[in-house]
């Protein structure tokens, strides 16, 4: 049943991706700014013939629907073409170079958000309106309402500049870069058993990771708190207590498990937002990942690169939602997949 459900949903991914790519293609073409103009930039004397030649070289002289058709045909076999703004390198090569950095940061922010949010939500729910709950509520409000770029700069100033606890930019101490296996420096360092490198990579992840995790942690914390409060009032929790189970077992085994069911969906949605947040955070921290690549590509009217990056984002978003649905059904016996 899981297999059929997942297969069905994966098939649905195809029209979604086609739709997304069409919208992006259309938007990029409607946005003022011609990629050829950008390529030529401040270059010296240029003849119309040279401009036309470039335009035809990149197929930009063809009608919109032909350009889009060609894009689809090539993308179907994994060829996203040549980047306009990276000196003729292929889009896959440019993306592959930046993907590990973004994966590492996103995974880290995800783990950080969950690790902060679930215990905080549980503690807050145990004594609603208590001092911890109030503090956590204020923190959550700040986490949700602070714009990422501002929070990023504040974290840099406080933890990097004033306290000298954490590095501001970069990914790892350059003398400690671990042997390239996955491109995720923390993973690679662990695989190689290089603890100093692992620690350095982790420290470099802290500030951008925290800035990225803040809004997600806040939302998830609030969700866990409110569903825990609901669950704790249920009869079966009272019953568990009446049986004389230790409080940790009541909370951990009976209450939290049930409280997590509605949380799963929020986590998936928030992880999607985490991905979009990384464009801002990566720009603020000058973190060399996909988000910054996307921002630069949009500014340079680099159509093929924008397409590829947006498709990666869209695919992750759809897969996250699929994952959430499967997990939700698995956690909640009342939900059946169809």
């Amino acid at each position, binding site marked *: 049943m*899981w297999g059929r459900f997942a297969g069905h949903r994966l098939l649905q991914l195809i029209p979604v991706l086609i739709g997304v790519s069409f919208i992006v293609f259309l938007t990029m073409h409607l946005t*003022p*700014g*011609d990629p050829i*103009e950008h390529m*030529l*930039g*401040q*270059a*010296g*004397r*240029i003849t119309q013939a*040279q401009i036309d030649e470039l335009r035809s070289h990149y197929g930009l002289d063809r009608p919109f629907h032909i350009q889009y058709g060609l894009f689809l045909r090539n993308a179907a076999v994994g060829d996203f073409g040549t980047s306009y703004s*990276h*000196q*003729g390198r*292929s889009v*896959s*090569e*440019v*993306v*592959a*170079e*930046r*993907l590990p950095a973004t*994966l590492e940061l996103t*995974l880290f922010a995800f783990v950080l958000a969950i690790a902060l949010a679930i215990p905080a939500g549980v503690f807050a729910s145990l004594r609603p309106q208590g001092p911890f709950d109030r503090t956590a509520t204020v923190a959550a409000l700040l986490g949700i309402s602070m714009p990422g770029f501002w929070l990023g*700069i504040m974290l*840099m*100033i406080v933890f*990097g*500049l004033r306290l*000298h606890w954490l*590095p*501001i*930019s*970069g990914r790892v101490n*350059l*003398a*400690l*870069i*671990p*042997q*390239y*296996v*996955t*491109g*995720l420096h923390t*993973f690679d360092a662990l695989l190689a058993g290089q603890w100093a*490198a692992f620690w350095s990579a982790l420290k470099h992840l802290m500030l951008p990771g925290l800035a990225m995790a803040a809004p997600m942690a806040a939302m998830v914390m609030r969700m866990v708190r409110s569903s825990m409060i609901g669950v704790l009032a249920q009869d079966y929790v009272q019953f568990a207590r009446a049986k004389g189970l230790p409080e940790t077992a009541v909370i951990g085994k009976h209450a939290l498990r049930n409280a997590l069911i509605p949380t799963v969906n929020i986590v998936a949605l928030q992880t999607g937002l985490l991905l979009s947040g990384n464009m801002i955070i990566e*720009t*603020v*921290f*000058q973190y*060399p990942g996909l988000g910054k*690549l996307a921002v*630069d590509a949009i500014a340079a009217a680099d159509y093929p690169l924008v397409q590829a990056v947006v498709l990666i984002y869209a695919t992750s978003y759809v897969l996250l939602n699929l994952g959430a649905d499967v997990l939700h059904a*698995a*956690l909640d*016996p009342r939900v059946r997949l169809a």
Partner: protein
Amino acid sequence: MRGVSSAGRYTRRQFLKQGAGVAAAAGLGPGLLSALLAGCGRQQATRRGLRADLVRGALSVALDADVQTLDPAMHRSRTVEAVVRNLCDGLVARDAEMRYVPQLAESWEVQGDTRWVFRLRQGVTFHDGSPFTADDVTFTIDRIIGAIPGLPPSPRKDLLGPVSGAEALDPHTVAIVTEGPYPILHKKLVFQEICPRAYFEKVGPDEFARNPVGTGPFRLVEWVPGERIVVERFSEYYGGSPEVPPVGPAELAGVIFRPLEEAATRLVSLEAQEVDVAVNVPPDQADRVDALPNAQLSVAEGTRTHFVGLNCARKPFSDRRVREAMRYAVDPRPIVEQFLLGRAQALPGILVPIAFGYDDSLPEPRQDAGKARALLREAGHPDGLDVTFDCEATDKRMAEAIAGAMAEAGVRAEVRVWKKDNLLNQLRRQERDMFLTSWGNSSLDPSGILPVLFRSDGYSNFFGYRHSAVDRLLEEADRAMDPDARARRYVQVQRILHDDTPTCFHFAQEELYGVSDRVSNFHARPDGMLPMHDVSLAAEA
């Protein structure tokens, strides 16, 4: 209630039990994915930590832009040039005072106006160990002028001037031939770095752009796009120009260039001592940087002139009186002072004062709203003028301030914002009436700006400007081998342009760098180059 697996059924509880395994796999998944993808990025496969002594002894520079190539011949980016100049030397260079000094050339002489003979320094080697010879010079020149079939045209061709070819006379002598008399070839050669023919032909243009080899004081260790460019001292360096002591290998163990495009990030990194030099300090942060306990500001005069351009080929600015009215409509000094906080200079004309042939007799710009109104009335605009004022996004506030100040003279300018390259190309097609833009002239020779902007056929004549005397004077100046004769003509052109007013409201911004106190011998330069040969770094406390 126990989760019993009935035939072929996969229960919720089994699923959950395997959840831990699934979660672990999900964690590893992205890693595996990127490992698969890494197959595409060849150079990544061998990447590992840099030598600790290199990281410790290297100077770290925060750049304000990323680089797309390291090929000296295939860019028009000042950032790329600033990095590449540390890897690859040229025949001629400039010192910090912008004096021209021989670098790979030992000396040169001009024979019969069109033939320049350069004697090359001997015993110089490229980073790959091969010797530097005249053949590498002819290869470099041929590639730039497009004389090598099968290679893409170089965007630096027009920075070199009308060169028709180069010829190796012997292994250490080369002749460069120009199409006509061209008095400033040596000035133009500072923009070209010498590339080794053999290495280039062996690895091809793509690999050369990633892994260039030159004769410079540093050689490339690694370039991780978007992240860093690491170079290390080249111990067999011939020493550089004897006219710029000290001569010998570089002081620094290496340099790490990092693109940090956000100014705030650059400055915080400087303050936290993660970088030693931060380029392009915004004027409003200059005083703060200067007041830092561990860093200071380094300042040089700028070479880029910002100006308001007027389209002389279209109404209303085709009338000279209207253009003159614009010159009197606004005084740049208070606006420049307010927006750039004393970190810029209002100018009477398009040339900066440190440029060759600068005319210091032009009157200072000033506002005379009454005179502007009178001129407009005379030109048939008794009720003033409505115009659209185009600029790029970064100049919006400045443009609005200019528009506001012009209102007093009866000019109602509506500011419209464009993307940079988009506006530039409209200007090249002479489609805009009034606009705020800029032109950089790091050669500091008028030939890099006056003919480009104001000759009838200038490729960036945004103004539809045609003036036969200007065309003739610029043509003569281009060919006059006597510097005084050239300077006289440029002065005449500046006076005509002042009276004719295709441009007004000129100003030039200073070049501002934040430099850590650990760094000695770093000098901000008007041309924006970052030569690291003579720079040194105090050991960390």
